[in-house]
């Protein structure tokens, strides 16, 4: 309940705070008795931004929790493992070389990129024998390679530079209703799949042998988890660019009060991640007023120290 209340509060803040100050009365007016006045238009624009933030936040949180359980790795995060970078490289390719400009067109490229990099990192990291360090290194190295590719595209094509330099940071600023509608089916499917996977993933977390003894179908669970993560990360990245660390932080916070049961962790992550994402977005709007700091920058600046803290706190054996 407290989590849901917090979410409502942040969503309200996300509508009320921005370059144009609005009173709560104006927000109320815009939400429920819209007449098309200036204040109402502002509320309408911020509403789509907030809704997209909610969806993408929940997607990244769920994807992070699923990946952490799947890889049995406390440091797994869609951004850190390079999955978001894969999706964005694919999207840039689609925009520049194939002239795809609609979200519904390049979301498929995003899925392909996310899935390809996910598989690549998993193999490069050593599959079953993967340790957190190996996976993180493999993800970072692949991200670096893809980043180099993005830069090569931006150098050779001025139009791409104009567009990409904003998109590759990760921002909610360009949200529109059509974007939301176009990614909603994929995000919805991914979220439902992720929540359904809670019980089988619980078994996976106990280790291969125990899971098999408990009658879990390991390969099916792994494949479905990868599918869920790909759907969630691909659609989220297609909608607002690569965003790091949200999927890393939230599951850790949640685990501290729910314990290790994924049937609790996943729903809580789905509710609390948007709090983080929208909160970061609001902070970005307050800090750099009247311009704004992109949400991807804020989450990275908040998430980096948290990540380092996690690394320092854990004992070697747990990593």
């Amino acid at each position, binding site marked *: 309940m407290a989590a849901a209340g917090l979410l409502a509060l942040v969503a309200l803040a996300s509508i009320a705070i921005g370059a144009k100050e609005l009173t709560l009365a104006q927000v109320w007016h815009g939400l429920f008795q819209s007449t098309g006045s200036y204040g109402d238009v502002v509320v309408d624009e911020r509403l789509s931004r907030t809704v997209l933030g909610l969806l993408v936040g929940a997607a990244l949180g769920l994807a992070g929790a699923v990946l952490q359980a799947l890889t049995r790795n406390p440091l797994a995060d869609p951004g850190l493992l390079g999955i978001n970078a894969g999706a964005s490289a694919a999207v840039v390719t689609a925009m520049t070389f194939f002239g795809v400009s609609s979200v519904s067109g390049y979301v498929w490229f995003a899925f392909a990129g996310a899935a390809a990099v996910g598989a690549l990192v998993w193999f490069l990291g050593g599959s079953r024998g993967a340790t957190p360090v190996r996976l993180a290194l493999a993800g970072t190295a692949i991200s670096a390679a893809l980043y*180099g590719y993005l830069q090569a595209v931006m150098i050779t094509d001025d139009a791409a530079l104009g567009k990409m330099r904003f998109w590759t940071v990760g921002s909610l600023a360009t949200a529109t209703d059509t974007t939301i509608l176009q990614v909603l089916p994929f995000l919805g499917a991914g979220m439902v799949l992720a929540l359904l996977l809670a019980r089988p993933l619980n078994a996976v977390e106990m280790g291969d042998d125990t899971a098999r003894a408990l009658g879990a179908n390991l390969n099916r669970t792994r494949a479905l988890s990868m599918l869920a993560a790909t759907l969630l990360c691909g659609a989220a990245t297609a909608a607002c660019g690569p965003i790091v660390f949200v999927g890393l932080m939230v599951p850790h916070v949640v685990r501290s009060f729910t314990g290790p049961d994924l049937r609790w962790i996943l729903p809580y992550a789905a509710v609390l991640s948007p709090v983080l994402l929208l909160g970061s977005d609001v902070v970005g709007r307050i800090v750099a007023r009247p311009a704004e700091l992109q949400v991807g920058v804020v989450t990275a600046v908040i998430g980096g120290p948290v990540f380092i803290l996690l690394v320092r706190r854990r004992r*070697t054996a747990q990593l």
Partner: protein
Amino acid sequence: MRTVRKTTPDTSAPAAAAGTARPLGRALRAPGGLSLRLDARALAVVAALLLAALTASVLLIGTGDFPISAGDVLRTLVGGGDRGQEFIVRELRLPRVLVGLLVGASLGLAGALFQSVTRNPLGSPDVLGLSAGATAGALVMIVLFSGSAAAVTGGALVGGLATGLAIYLLAWKQGVHGYRLVLVGIGVSAVVTAVNGYLITKADFVDAARAVVWMTGSLNGRDWTQVWPLLALFAVLLPLVLSQARGLRMLEMGDDVSYALGVRVERVRLVLMVSAVLLTAAATAACGPVTFVALTAPQLARRLTRSPGPNLVPSLCMGATLLVTADWAAQRLFGADQLPVGVVTGVLGGLYLLWLLVTERRAGRI
């Protein structure tokens, strides 16, 4: 993590498989108790790499809008060319090639040091966020102050050093361990990369284009003013690093063993890391973050020498060869000064990662 060891002999190498694992070594002993083991194969590799680097350099000097044949280049270098050639070679292309050689050598050496200290073939300065830090410093100068080339160089230097210091301090906890260093570096790298992205969105279009070219790493328009500082730094750091190489070799067996063998673990590690950070920062300041040279050079060198241990000198030569060859390839394939060298090394790095995927994974050594 202790089992992750990059120093185990490469069992897939044919020589090891054939049972000739013992290298053709020869020890030099000086009267004062000093001794130095010379590995014939490593010496041959170094010689071959130097030859390759020189060949690529001569070819690179001859390449451009005004092509010069290799014979003319050599003649001009020793002082026998005509005036036009003299100007082009001495003033325009020689400094560029020298910067390329020095930067490549610095990156190769820094990569070997970092991979050895972190005991991981992927633990190179570009993955650990040092290049990103140097980039951030340069971007601040380009975007916020529209600074001159010298200011950008200074900013990159400061950014790289500050990032290195931050990573070391954040990873410090009764000593710096390989795995923590790697993870903290990755965290710092993610933060700095996001900040870099923000700086680029803040820039106006001309600055952004300049920043992106800088961020890819380019040797265009380098002159003698960049050669001398690099050369001076190299002259100081190379002997320092080589004097600590023995300690580094011990460190690869693990901290406990090293203590027992009388190595001052933290001191050796600190000296080597500071050197590696300085080398990376200087190289990045000179021509931007050229990706993946630091990652690939030590690995390729190790495969050529087939010897365990840090392989510092072969890595250094390999880095120089790689960078100059990549620059030459960039100019030949895409026309003069069309694509910066960083794009070519980036592609090479991607191929290297794929190859790593196939071989290293099978051996379980990443």
